[in-house]
């Protein structure tokens, strides 16, 4: 090989190695979940179509310090708090917001002091969660534009995390079940009320202090990064241009901070530094063309507002802070959005959850092994069938239905579909008296039957995609608590203990093969 060819080969092999590595990280290490792990990420994604929404983003002070519902009344438009740990890089948050905002949206940034002094390098808890078992923070990586992804892989993501990520054995079925678990959690969040649904957690304190830096005074905790605006923040400020170019309006405001006992957040010896620092930040932000709302003293709260850290305030104080913020917005002449479209956030979220659940069920049914001739015993039920709706957790003896309607699905082996009928047997027992259950199989009504030991002849013509969907309807599901039998509040009715599958051409069962 000539020297020239040696150089060319070296160059191209380097490019190939880099590409392969980037693909490995993207496709095998920081895998994309079907459903984001966190509710806030799921909500950001689900509400992305809304035009004229307001997104509040920062560290956790925004979760505990602003009442999105109240702010929503001011803006006359949906307001959602998309905030989490302030240690997570602001750059990743901005880029994920950029992907899910539209012209006319507003982004409000009550950044914590730490954001202004953030140094290069990523927090360990952030890096580790990108590709852990649950892929808890993959959303941030997978929402990056392609070039940002490459930049992240080659300048920030440590090789040790790539190796540990590759070592994790990922199972498609387990991941889909994890998606379902999260979707069930999201349902509970939406049902728990508007505050939680809009990304806030306004609570009455004080609470038990966990991981609180008791050895640090409030001001030393807030300003552990010093009083100098960092290069990282300046880069983030420039990055916001991506949002403004889309027609998104951006406003900054100060973080809520709270004294604790005698630990004052702005002590006399730091007050001069804070004033100068706040002025520097404000000028920097305003020079880039963004408005800064209010002053930092307005969001400083006395010790009785303390929830569990210097950045978290109690509900009553959060409402007070929101009122002050609204006054400041009015004072700064920030216009209302007057989003006239009839938006029901709860309905939108529920629809998204249902849509995603159906998708996950569909994928799960495909991923589970197909059922051949034979029995599915009690312990195997949740491993072989997909219990979509109206079921309790699997128990050793079997599984209870919960509520008046229960549905489950599975796929059958193609070999069974060569015959005319699939013989499906259900075994189980009833709670609180035997009764008849309405049965639908692949949308065909099979009548009202007692299911203790019942077989159904399902025509293969009604089966598409190898899939069997069974719906059971009960008329009198009551909880043991209601009946005074125990504290169990589940409205249980039928306990499924076994399923058998067979195939036939004339309706008589043949011997089992497995």
């Amino acid at each position: 090989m000539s020297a020239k060819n040696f150089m060319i080969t070296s160059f191209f092999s380097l490019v190939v190695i880099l590409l392969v590595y980037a693909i490995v990280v993207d496709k095998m290490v920081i895998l994309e979940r079907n459903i984001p792990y966190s509710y806030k990420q799921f909500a950001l994604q689900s509400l992305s179509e809304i035009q004229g929404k307001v997104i509040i983003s920062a560290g956790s002070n925004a979760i505990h310090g602003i009442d999105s519902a109240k702010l929503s009344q001011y803006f006359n438009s949906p307001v959602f708090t998309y905030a989490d740990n302030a240690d997570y890089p602001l750059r990743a948050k901005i880029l994920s917001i950029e992907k899910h905002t539209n012209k006319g949206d507003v982004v409000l940034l009550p950044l914590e002091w730490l954001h202004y002094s953030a140094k290069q390098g990523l927090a360990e808890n952030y890096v580790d969660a990108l590709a852990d078992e649950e892929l808890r923070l993959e959303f941030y990586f997978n929402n990056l534009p392609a070039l940002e992804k490459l930049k992240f892989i080659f300048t920030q993501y440590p090789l040790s995390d790539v190796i540990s990520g590759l070592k994790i054995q990922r199972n498609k079925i387990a991941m889909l079940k994890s998606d379902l678990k999260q979707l069930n959690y999201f349902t509970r969040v939406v049902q728990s009320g508007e505050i939680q649904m809009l990304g806030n957690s306004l609570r009455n304190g004080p609470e038990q202090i966990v991981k609180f830096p008791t050895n640090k005074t409030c001001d030393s905790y807030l300003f552990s990064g010093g009083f100098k605006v960092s290069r990282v923040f300046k880069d983030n400020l420039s990055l916001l241009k991506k949002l403004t170019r889309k027609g998104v309006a951006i406003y900054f405001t100060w973080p809520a901070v709270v004294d604790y006992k005698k630990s004052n957040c702005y002590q006399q010896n730091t007050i001069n530094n804070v004033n100068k620092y706040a002025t520097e930040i404000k000028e920097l932000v305003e020079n880039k063309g963004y408005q800064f709302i209010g002053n930092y003293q307005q969001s400083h709260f006395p010790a009785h507002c303390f929830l569990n850290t210097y950045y978290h305030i109690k509900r009553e104080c959060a409402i007070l802070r929101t009122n002050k913020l609204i006054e400041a917005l009015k004072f700064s002449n920030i216009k209302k959005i007057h989003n006239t479209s009839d938006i029901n956030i709860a309905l939108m979220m529920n629809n998204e959850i249902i849509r995603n659940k159906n998708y996950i069920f569909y994928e799960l049914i495909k991923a589970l092994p197909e059922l051949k001739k034979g029995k599915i015993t009690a312990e195997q039920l949740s491993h072989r069938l997909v219990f979509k709706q109206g079921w309790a957790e699997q128990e050793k003896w079997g599984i209870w239905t919960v509520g008046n309607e229960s549905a489950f699905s599975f796929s059958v082996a193609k070999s069974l579909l060569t015959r005319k009928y699939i013989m499906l047997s259900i075994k189980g027992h009833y709670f609180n008296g035997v009764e008849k259950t309405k049965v639908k199989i692949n949308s065909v009504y099979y009548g009202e039957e007692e299911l203790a030991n019942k077989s159904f002849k399902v025509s293969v013509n009604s089966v598409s995609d190898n899939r069997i969907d069974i719906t059971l309807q009960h008329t009198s599901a009551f909880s043991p608590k209601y009946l005074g039998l125990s504290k169990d509040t589940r409205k249980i009715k039928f306990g499924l203990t076994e399923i058998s599958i067979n195939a036939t051409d004339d309706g008589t069962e043949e011997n089992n093969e497995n």
Partner: protein
Amino acid sequence: MLFNSAVFIYLFLPFVLLIYFFLNKLQLLASGKAWLVLASLFFYGYWNIDYIILIIISILCNYGLGKLLIKLNNGIKQYKLLSKPILIKGIIFNLAILFYYKYTDFIIANVNYLFKVEAPALDLLLPLAISFFTFQQIAYLVDCYKSDALEYNFLNYCLFVTFFPQLIAGPIVHHKEMMPQFNNRTNAYVNHANIAKGLFIFAIGLFKKVIIADSFAQWANTGFNSTTALQFWDAWGASLSYTFQLYYDFSGYADMAIGIALMFNIVLPINFNSPYKALTIQDFWHRWHMTLSRWLRDYLYIPLGGNRKGAIRTYINVMLTFILGGLWHGAAWTFIVWGALHGLALCTQRLWTQVGFKLPSIISWLLTFTFISVSWIFFRAEDIPSALHIISGMLGVNGYNTSSILIAPGNTLITSPYIVSYLIIFGFSAFFSRNSMELSLNKIRYTIWGSLMVSAVFFLAILFGIATVDSEFLYFNF
């Protein structure tokens, strides 16, 4: 800007190379050189822009003084008499700058200690490479005085001082070996063989730095920064880790410098020749930081009288040369002790040779390596008590357990499988394998495997660069 940083490898170096050869292709040779000087100043200023002015003043003054000395030497006899005071003033000027930035706080601390006063330290930031460019230019002035230097073109002189591959941490180049190369027109054009060879040598250096030295650095730092008393195995683990860290770090840097310079068709002098294979201390100094040894011999030891003024003066000269050599590395008593130890070792060796004492080769090598390894403890330690703390651990004073220093959960410093395997693999490489110069000075066979190896090293450099944020070369501190 570090040679092992992505910004240097993937932006700065290719950009500078491209523009340099493009200008030369257009026959704009002076512009090509000016571009290289500007790029070198940018490279220097990337670290701290404030000190660019210092290096420019140093260049202007030394070039002017050199020119004057040459003119005086070529003039009438009365003028020649003026040249010695001018040389002395020139040397004082250079040493004064070096002294001010490097040694003022050291002197203040010692005065404070001796006279129980509290004069405040100046806390000056040491300008990068000051020890290197000062020595290069003193050599130039001395040679001008001795009529050993020609009157060089200003641009070439600037390039001689600032040429970025060797600017920060050597090799300490001599004007006689550089100027002819800068003047040689054939060196101005792309030479694929040199670029490929340079790339190959650079990759070897990069591997030494990011994969070997930076790994040893973690273990060495753990041991040397330990606040608890090191026990026998941990102390030896820390000491050997630093011994190999320093070698792979500095020789890695030298390889990278030689490789980069070669891409510009400039051959830099070899600075390392398997120093840990040395059988004697004298042999070691013929193999370790060879250009510094050469400088100390030519511009300190010989002017002091060398071995021409009797045995006692020879020993004194050896001791002085090594103590000053130690002090050149840093303003601290640890460096003075390190230099003095090497001076003593050389004097002992000289004495043994004179009385005809000879050891078998293997014993001689073991003794030399052990001495070098122990002396590095003074070179690395924050102060003399810290160095003695490690040495007492190596002597077993603190016990023989291996559980005193944790470097990772479940791993102690010496029982870590990584450190043991690194010590075995790269220790043996330093002792037995051919060095990078031996590998590359022979005709390189360009194969697909060679190109894959080069690519893999560049790839690993990127990934290891993420993990090691603080990865400066050790000799940047000198």
